[in-house]
């Protein structure tokens, strides 16, 4: 049984060392973290999706009677504006 234990440990060592065995010398060993531009784009996508989801939710709530006409008119404008701003920011060239 102890042999099985040793084999288990050896197999674990090989698997853990595998990334270094596959690439003893890596051309680029940096973790591919998102760049600042990626991060900015992601935040904008998040804002766009949030604005579009809010619009969709408002439409649904209005159709189901949860939001009356007066509230709907009051809320629609700012939400449309927020969605438009998010869409424009996404379309504009990144710095």
């Amino acid at each position, binding site marked *: 049984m102890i042999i099985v234990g040793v084999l288990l440990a050896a197999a674990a060592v090989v698997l853990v060392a595998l990334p270094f065995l596959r690439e003893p010398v890596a051309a680029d060993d940096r973790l*591919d973290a998102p760049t600042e531009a990626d991060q900015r*784009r992601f935040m904008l996508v998040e804002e766009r999706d949030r604005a579009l989801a809010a619009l969709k939710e408002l439409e649904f709530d209005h159709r189901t009677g949860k939001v009356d006409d007066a509230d709907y008119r009051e809320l629609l404008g700012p939400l449309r504006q927020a969605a438009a701003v998010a869409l424009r920011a996404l379309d504009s060239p990144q710095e």
Partner: protein
Amino acid sequence: MADLGRAALIVTFGLAVYSLVAGGIAARRNERRLAASARNALYCSFASTLVGAAVLATALVRHDFSFKYVAAHTNRHLPVAYTLSAFWGGQEGSLLLWLLVLTGYGALAVAINRRLLRDLTAWVVPVIGGIATFFSFVLVAVASPFDTQTAPFDGAGLTPSLQNPYMVAHPPMLYLGYVGLSVPFAFAAGALLSGRTDERWIVATRRWTLAAWMFLGFGQLLGAHWAYVEVGWGGYYAWDPVENAALMPWLAATAFLHSVMVQERKGMLKVWNMVLVALAFELSVFGTFLTRSGVVNSIHSFAKSSIGPWFLAFVVISSVFSLALIMWRLPLLKAKTKLESAISREAAFLYNNLLLVALCLTILWGVLFPIVTQLVKGETRTIGRPYYDFFLRTFGLPLLLLMGIGPLVAWRKTSLRGLMRTLSWPMAAAAVAGIVLVAIGAGSSSPGLIAYTFSTFVLATIVVELVRGTRATGSLFTLVARNRRRYGGYLVHAAVVLLAIGIAGSSAYSSSVERRLALGQSMTVAGYTLTNRGVTVDPKANVTETRAHLAVAGRWNGTISSGDNQYVNPPEPSREVGIKTDWLRGQDLYVIVDEAHPKTGLVFVQVLVKPLINLIWVAGIVFLFGSLIALWPDAREQRRLVARLAPAAP
């Protein structure tokens, strides 16, 4: 074979330490190969823990009493299912299960998210590695399930009260829940460590949190049913510290599941969500500490040992770590928007959160109070049922009401006029229910009457939501399929209503009579007449069964038997209650026989009639069904998420 188990756990410990240290260095220095190596170590730690678990399971099935653990928790008479359930019947085995589920969950969560969220998972690996390091250390150095001895002929056996089908499922369910909360905690910590505090960690862990919450909730209901049929005192929840230990993280996770929607929709409550995730995780470890340390007196503390200080140290260190992380990243967690109105969905979620956390913290204080008084005054003072019942009513009834109002309030703001119009039907239904209940005599209990009226209100809001939604979309199926989380959630709300009705009915309107009955004597309780027909004693291989037989007439005609089992190995008694369920009324006739004299036929009997109690168990099934609907993968949503996360992925 024990050598293999020990070796497997030592390998797990080494791998966990490696994934903690190497993973931390890799994430800090941004090194790709080292991060992949640490990730592989986490995968391997699951495999080596699985080997250890297989060794213990094999030893249990083979009745290998050279394992101290097997000899302490099983014997040759034990059926196979209970022999296997002894895996989590003792301390060492249950800690091994914790580690197995942790490494399994951790490896799976990292594997699923490693491409899309590479920067985040690089930090998640050392966090899970850190938790696994603690548990594997305890298993290797403090409480090993692989300690051996000269094998005795037979083992001590499993505590009789654990020999119940519910005990085969209840502990693993709780562990799947407790440990499942490690995943959102690890991703939240990873987000804070990496400085990427956007929504991605929430998206990545949404289903993990929901699954952990579902297991924890369903596991508690299984435990409640076990207590009801096995412990034999007529109740299902005694506010026992160990029961509370499972309830507290569930309440914190419930608060998180609601507040996280506010962050998703409005980018608010980021700090609060981090605090809730950390609280749920810390409470889950604290729950394991309470169950296993023996620091509090509980019927559920089946194992007591010296692991308490280690767990306490881990809870303190991980709590300080979590709080320090949140404080460090506070500037990144500032909300961009504000609460626009006190009458809005996000405000309703906020009120719900405050009530849930207040309930959670009052329960925590009740659990800690005996420990605090012991430390400060040198004497243990316990907090009784009235304390918990008071706070359950104080926070629980407004929560029930909010469960009805919340879904009918729109995001951002709703005018009072619009809200009153939307609520008109549910309020009318609740008013009618209240009047009818008073008319039929249910007004004898004010909390019961309020609970039923609020329950009607919530059920009416769910119906209104479903009817209006179906009208808008054209089909109920389309409505649910388009937003499974919401409508699965409504079904969970319906389960909570059933639970509230069951709890109120069985506690506020129950009947209980105690009598000493000679042979042939009768007693009457809530429409049932019970007559003592004598006592039998039935000696079997490992148990002697004593039963009093009572003929029942009235709402149901038949015979009900109750008594006790006296086991030979282990030499412990077990109370065996008699239960007859009336499914039409949802009520139980529950018979407890405390004394039964075979020679004279004299019995001391307690008879309880518990109206609507079976709605609690029905609630469990509805809860499970609703949770599964909310959990069910949605291909369309998945595609949207991938498209949304893709710009940030390498």
